[in-house]
Structures are given as structure tokens and as C-alpha cells.
């Protein structure tokens, strides 16, 4: 029941991210590893794109390259109209401030700052004032309203990840990348986090790309890309179900 090319290219809307023939090689010579071997994709605006695949298939590498954290060995990546693979450090910094949010597997919060301070940190860094109404709403939506003055050490894993998600959303970036945001959480909490991700897409039209291992992701993603050995090998649409996902995963795992 694996379907490919199910999703129609979104007409009218420009893709938020456009990648072409992206390759990434780690190391040199004998021991070189080709983590990506020619990936092309368009990330549609206002949608939740899930990226799945076996461990070591290149998901994180792809995520880093799309987010401008790492440079491809070859190929191009455009965010909006900007080719980001050739940008210098200052332009990348600006890009990150205006267009990119990132959610990490290990939260990466600053331990000495409170939840709220962590959330508004991207704005603080950019020298902007938070929009208080939006911030309150974000806190409410992430269920952190009464945790705003707590430090990360005083929060549960799920709460910490919600702080991280709010931090990624606070500057209303063009696109949010999340690399296994639930990888470090228990099953119940994972479900809540996935719901939150979906919720932000629905409420704010937040374009999101998320790497995940959860078959449940099928229920919330608008589109699922499968990576294996550094290539996109399959794709599922919005109507995919958990069973479909598991089937593809098994197939790829058997590869």
C-alpha cells in the first residue's frame, strides 16, 4: 500500500525551502561517508513535513543543511529566494534570526535562564521586544503559563521541549526544523509534543519540517518523506495512516 507522488505540488504558493541535488560527504578517502547522495525536495509553506527513515539514513544531516547549520558538499538550498549554501556567517546569522527556528532532541535550553527568558531569547538576541499578547498566547498554548519563571532544571523533559518549541516559534520564522523532538521523551509526552507541533501548523500556518521515528506522525503530517542511504526513497501524503508508515519503515529496514 505504498504510494508515491501522491501529494500534488502546492499551486500558487512558493515552497518555503527548495533543495536541489544536495550531497554531503563526511571525511575523505577510504573512510568517507556519503550521508546525502543527491536529495532534492520542496518544502511547502504552511504544512508539516515529516522526515522518516532508518538510523544513519541522513535525516539529521539533511535537517542541518536545510537549516543552514551545515554546508552541503554539493547542491543548492534556497529558503524563500535566498540561496543559503553560499552565505557568509553574518548573513547566515541574519537568516537564522528572521527565517529559521530549530527544535533539538536534547532541548538545548540555557540552564541559568527561566522558561520565559529562554523562549524570548531569539528576540532578545535580535534586539527585539516580544509581542506580549503573542507571548501569552504561546505560553498558554504550550501549557507553560504557570511555569514561566521556572528554570529548565525545575521542568520535566516534556515541559523543557515545550519551552524549546515556543522558543522556535516566538519569532514567527519562515520555517521550523525539529530533529527528533520526541526522541528523548516517553510515549505519552511524545504524543503531546507531536500534537503541539501540529497545532502550531494549524494555528499559525507555521511551516515545519520534523524528523521523527513515531509512526503516529503519520496522523499529523501533511507529507512524509522517507530517507534511506542518503536518498529520498518514498513519500506519503496527508491521508497516510500509521500502518502505511510502519510498512514503509519495515521495508526500508529490510533493505
Amino acid at each position, binding site marked *: 500500500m505504498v504510494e508515491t507522488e501522491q501529494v500534488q505540488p502546492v499551486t500558487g504558493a512558493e515552497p518555503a525551502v527548495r533543495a536541489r541535488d544536495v550531497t554531503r560527504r563526511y571525511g575523505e578517502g577510504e573512510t568517507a561517508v556519503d550521508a546525502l547522495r543527491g536529495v532534492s525536495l520542496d518544502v511547502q509553506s504552511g504544512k508539516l513535513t515529516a522526515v522518516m527513515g532508518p538510523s544513519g539514513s541522513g535525516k539529521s544531516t539533511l535537517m542541518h543543511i536545510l537549516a543552514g547549520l551545515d554546508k552541503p558538499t554539493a547542491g543548492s538550498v534556497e529558503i524563500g529566494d535566498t540561496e543559503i549554501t553560499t552565505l557568509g556567517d553574518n548573513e547566515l546569522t541574519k537568516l537564522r*534570526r528572521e527565517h529559521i527556528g530549530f527544535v533539538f532532541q536534547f532541548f538545548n535550553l540555557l540552564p541559568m535562564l527561566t522558561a520565559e527568558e529562554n523562549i524570548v*531569547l531569539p528576540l*532578545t538576541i535580535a534586539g527585539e521586544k516580544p509581542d506580549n499578547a503573542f507571548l501569552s498566547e504561546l505560553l498558554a498554548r504550550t501549557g507553560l503559563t504557570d511555569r514561566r519563571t521556572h528554570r529548565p532544571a525545575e521542568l520535566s523533559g516534556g515541559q523543557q521541549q515545550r519551552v524549546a518549541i515556543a522558543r522556535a516559534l516566538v519569532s514567527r520564522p519562515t520555517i521550523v526544523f525539529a530533529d527528533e523532538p520526541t526522541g528523548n521523551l516517553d510515549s505519552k509526552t511524545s504524543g503531546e509534543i507531536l500534537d503541539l507541533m501540529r497545532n502550531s501548523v494549524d494555528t499559525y500556518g507555521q511551516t515545519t519540517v520534523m524528523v521523527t521515528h513515531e509512526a503516529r506522525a503519520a496522523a499529523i503530517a501533511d507529507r512524509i518523506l522517507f530517507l534511506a542511504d542518503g536518498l529520498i526513497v518514498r513519500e506519503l501524503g496527508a491521508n497516510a495512516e500509521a500502518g502505511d508508515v510502519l510498512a514503509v519503515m519495515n521495508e526500508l529496514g529490510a533493505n
Partner: protein
Amino acid sequence: MLAVALKGLAGRKLRSVLTAFAIVLGVAMVSGTFVLTDTIQRGFDTIFTQSLKNADAVVTGHQAFGSSGGQPVLSPSVPASVLAKVRAAPDVEQAAPSISDEAQLIDHDGKAIVNGGAPNIATGIDPSLTRFNPLTLVAGHWPHGADEVVIDTGTARKHHFQVGDTIGVAARGPIQKFRVAGLAKFSGVSFGGATLAIFDIPTAQKLFHKEGRYDRIDVAAKPLTPADKLVRELRSVLPPTVDVRTTSEQVKVDSSDTNTFLNIFRYILLVFGGVALFVGSFVIANTLSITIAQRTREFATLRTIGASRRQVLGAVIVEALVVGTLASLIGLFAGFGLARLLDSLLVSFGIDLPKAGLVYATRTFVVALVVGIGVALLASLRPAFRATRVPPIAAVREGAELPPGRFAWLKPYLSLAAAALGIALLAFALFKSGLGTARVLTLLGVGVLLLFAGVAGFSSRLVRPLARVLGWPAERLGGAPGRLARSNAERNPVRTASTAAALMIGVALVVFLAVLAAGMRTTFRSAVNDVFHADYAITAQNNFSPIYPSVGRAATHVPGVTVASSIRGDLGRAFGSTLQVSAVEPNVGRVMTQRWEAGSPAALSHLDGNGAIVSHSFADKHHLKLGSHFKLLTTSGRELDLVVRAIFRPLHDTPATLLGSVTISTSTFDRTFVQPKNLYTLVDTRGGASDANARRLEQVLKAFPNAKLQTKKQFVDNQLSGINTLLGLLLVLLALSIVVSIVGIVNTLVLTVYERTRELGMLRAVGMTRRQVRRMIRYESVVTALIGATLGIVLGLGLAALVTSRISFLTYAVPTAQIVGFVVAAILVGILAAILPARRASRLNVLEALQYE
């Protein structure tokens, strides 16, 4: 962003405090130095200005040339006829003559009250002319008549004298008894170690053999007469043998000596503050490097959410600035306390100077803050730039490490180059002739800094081999913890090296000083033994102040004494520079020999009125040969035309082996120098040094409490005690830098314990006891300290070798026992530094430690 930086600091309190501590001590030393020297300066200024209060002009005998090297040049006294002429001048309202000389007060036990090198001032004043009297009478009345003296309140308090008591005074001859008529003081100034004896004028004149003469005349002008008009008028009626100055000029002349001395003193203390700050900068740079390495993930995360490199740089620098500012402020105020401590330290080393209140000059605040903040800023630059090189991707990499700097590969070469350049500068400064003192000192300073920085930079390459060798005993003694400690010390060589480098600097300077002092002792001892052939020597109680010739003369008549030959000394001037002049008696040849380069030994005994014996270096410098003529200006203003009769060359070319650059006969000296005094009297006795001979001499010397009888060996030891005292003082001052480096070791260990929390948890989980954990940390600390000490000892020995090879009269003598002592001290330093970190490590909760991220 600023807030983030500040929060970061607050979140790392212990680390911030430890970093700050490295600055606090250095800044405290700087501010303490300023406060103390300013206070002393004001003390002197107050005394000099008060002494001339209400005078518009001052008349003294003409000073032949200016004082030099802190040794005063006395002006001759003026005849009473000068006073009459002054009083006759039309614009003079009042004129007060006075006598100034020196005399020791004798305490209740018959001992002379002498405090180190502080003066024992004796004055003769006319108490009825109150307007010129700078002193305030606290009790009794002003001295009147031949048996009355007024003494200063400080001496009275310390030695329990009251009005009406009898007190001994040693002026030019034997002790004389006086009645304490009153107690006086300078208002607003503590006198330090100086003592004061005030007589009326006739009494003072008699005591100091100045009948019919005065040392100074204070003059007050008639109302509305300007001081310079008065000076011009007096100048025109007075003979050229007197100086007439306005009060402010006179204050300048009086204080020029103490100002020179105070400036040198201030610089020396500041150098030690500088060394402490230099060491502190290593500690700060190292601490910051470690914290930044530990925060790699944090910086990377900041970068991913939009922080620019510049913001990361800013955050680190702001942190350093905040710590630097707080530390400097604390240091500034701690310095005010340190000033008192320094003062007690100096007093305990016999340096007790006048003080007026505590002076807090604006300059003290500015310099202390600028220096402290500046050091923090400079030390933070390199770590801050490294922090900007953390790539955003490090946020997602497990165990991401700080990328090496772009020029990291250059570091060993740069370090070696810096060290080589440092040595080159040192050699240039030492061996190139004709550089001014200031230039030489600057070159030496920069050279030493470069050398230290270079060796510190390179030393990371030496950590492994050194840790192997020095850690071996720890391994043998400590079992598994010992083995782990050794490999922990090796694990991050750069970190261990920079921690050790801080200690290295202090140790290097300590060893350097110890070797130089040992060299001086060796040279001096052999040089004196070479020329000194008497059984006894008589000097002042403090070993160096000149004393009146009456003492030497008294020794001549003691039964059993076969020779008593006094050597006088003072400053003279020849070829445009000021030099040491000695004078010898004809019998000197029986108690002193010299190594003659030209002329015969007989020259010593047969010095005629214009004959001179000169040292090899003096003759060499001015191209003098036997029979050459040269002119010598004496303190009385007389110019002597001298003929070179002999040239001597002391063993090791020491500059001062009992004789100065120029030696003349005592009879010529006494005729041409103001207040001739002895430096030493060499005494030979029938039967050699013996209890009986000593007893007979002591008996006679009892009348001269400021005179000290010593055997040849005691004499040499006493002369050397100055070197030992100085060495002791300098070592105490260096201790400050050592303390800073201890803080550095504590810092590194505490940070390392943080970093290895998980590992420590694991070790505990597999059965390491708390005690073993403590031992492991302690051994690592000792190994680090020993690496620093080893490098420091090698550097110190090398520096000393360089300096001694330049200065011919300094032998290179390694004080082995002292160096062994330093090594033991380094081990103690290591143990001490480990206490806090070891306790933290052993108290880690095993479970939490294992989960620590």
C-alpha cells in the same frame, strides 16, 4: 544579550568568585602601594613644610652638590656673623637660628634608640621665637639650659619617658645625661622610626662642636615684602658660602632625597603588584578558557537561535569585564587594608617611615580600576575569540569540543619565538653598554614577560614527560587513585600547563632572587675576608649608619689594643658624578690589605695631603694612571687636587670592599668634609679576639651605645644581614603572586571536577571510596604544582645565570637547601589547593553524578 551574560555569571558563582580573586590580590597590592606611599609622602611633606612654617626665606651653608642615592649631602654650618647680617637687612622682621644634627637617645636599659635607618634628629632652637617652631609642646616646657632636652612623644611613649626623667643622649662624644624638660610632636604626622631631641641653642652648639655657628636661619619678612624680594636682598648682603632660598625652594631641596627614595620604593612595590596581576592574568585566561570549553554547547545553541559571532564575543568579554570591575573594586578597598599590613610588614623589617593620615588619592582609584579591569579584559580576549569560533552545528553534536584556533598550530613556534626574543632582550639589556637605567629596566621587564609567556605557551609540550617523572611517586604511593591522578594531569596538557605556569612565574622569581642573594653573600664574604685582617670591627648598631669619630678614638686607648684604625666615608664629586669617598689613617695597612694593580702597599700608610688611592673601575673609567691628577669636590665645597698614588682591584671586582672609589688621608678628609664620620673602625688586639679583649673593649664602648663591637665573622654576617633582610622582604611580597597561582590551581581543579562529574560518579559507583577520590584530586594538584615548581626553578636558575654572568662580582651560587625548601613548599601548595576541590569531588552524590549532563 547583556542580561544573558550576567545571568551566566550568577549561575556560576563559585567560578566567578575564584576568577575574581585572581584580580583582587593584584589590584589590592597596587592600591595598597599607592595609599601607603602617598601617606608616607604626605608625612614627609608635612614635616618639611611644617618645619619651615612662618618663614619666608631660609639661609643655610652652601650645599656643595646634591644628595645622591638617598644618602644626604650635609651643608656646612654658617658663622654667627651671618645671623647678624640677616637681622640687619631692612626687610627682615625676624630671624631664628637653629642647629640640626643627629644624636641618639638612650633608653632605660642603656641601649641607643635606633630604628633601622630612620634618623635620630637633634636640633637646637630658640624657644622664645615661637613663630618658627614647627613643634607642638604636649607636656612640660621648652628646653632651657645645659641639662634640658625635649623629646618626641612617640619615643617617650614607646620607651616610657616622662617629663622630669633623666635620659642619656649620645651626640659626638660619650653619653651625656639630660633631664626631659618636655614632650613635643609634629601635629598631624606620625614620626615613624625617627627620634627627636631638642635643646636650646647654646647646648646644641656645645654638643655638636658648633660654637658660634648655626646650621640654618629661618627668616620672616616684614609685612607686604614678597619672599623673592627678601631672598634677593639677603643674597646681596650675605657671603657666597651660604645658600638663600625661599621656603618652597627649601622644601623642594629637603624633600628631593625622600622623594627619590619614595619613588623607587613605590616602583618596587608596584612591580610586585604587577607580578601578581601578570600571574592573575594567566589564572583568568585559563579559567575562562576552561569555562568556555565547557560551554561550547551553550554558545552553539545561541548561534543557532540567531546570535552573531560578535554577540558571543561580547557576552564573554562582558562577563570578564563585570568580574574584572567587581574584583577591582574589592581589590581597591582591600588595598586600603593591605596598606596597613604592608606598613606593619615594613616596620617589622626595620623600615618605619613618617605617615600622615591615610591618603586616598584619585589616582589610586583610577589606576587600580583601570589596571584591574584592563587585565581582566586582556585575559578574556583570547578565550572570547575562541568562543566565536564555535560553529552552530556544535549544538547538536554530542561532546562537541571547542575548535582549535586558526593559528593553534603556530602556538609552539610562537611561544618558542617569544621565549627566544625574551632571552635576546634580556641579554641585550644586560650586555649592551651605554643604555640608560630606565631603558635597561624596561628591556629587562619586557624580556622577562616575554620569556615567561613563551615558556608558559610551550610548556604544554612538557607536561607529559614532567607528569611521568613527577607523578611517579604519586603512583607508587597512591595506588589506583595515584595512577589516575597522574593521567588526569596529562589528559589536558594545555590546561595543566597554564595552571602550572602561574605558579612557575612566582617560583622563578623566588629562585632568581635566592640565587642572586646567595651569590652576593658568597662574593661579599670572600671579598671582605680578602682585605680585612683585624680581630674586631666597630660599626653603628644598625651596621651601616656612619658614626662619630670619638668612638674610634676611644678604642685606641683600650689596653690590649694594638691597632685601632678608623675608615671614614662620605659622598664626593669627581668627573661630574657623585661617588663614595673613604679616608684612612696611616696605621690602616696593619689591619687591611688590598690587591694592588699599581703603586705599592705602602701607599695606604703613606697617603699625603693630596694623595689618593683609587679603585680599578674608577681609574679605568676615567683613564687614570699612577701620578694622574684629578679634582674632587668635598661636601664643604672645597675642591681637592688629588694625585693617584695607587690603584687597587678588589677580589671579584666588588664595588665596595671597605673602601670607596676614592680614598684619601683622614687628615685631609677631616679638613674638607662636613661633620666627618666613621663607617668602621678596625681593631687588632694583643693575643687576637678573646673574651678578655672583647670585655675590655665593650667596657669602653658602653659610653657609646650606638657603637657595636663585632668579631670579623660577626662583622661579615652583620653586613650580609641587610641582603637577607631585603631578600626576606621581597620573598614576602612575592608570596602574593604565589597565593594568586594557588587560586589558579584551585580554579582549574574545581572546574575539572565539574567537568568530570559523570566520571567521578562512575568511579564511585565501581567502588572508589571518598577518601580515594580526595587523594586522586590531591595528587593531581601536587603533580601540577610540581610541574610549575620544576619549570620555575629551571627558569629562575637560568635567569640568575644570565644576570650573574654579566655582573662580574656576583658569583653563581645555587642555594641547594633553599631550593629543596621551595620544592617542599610547592608540594604543600598542591595539597592546600586541592582541599576545596577534593571535598567537592568526594561529596558528589553518586546517582546524580551519573545522570549529570
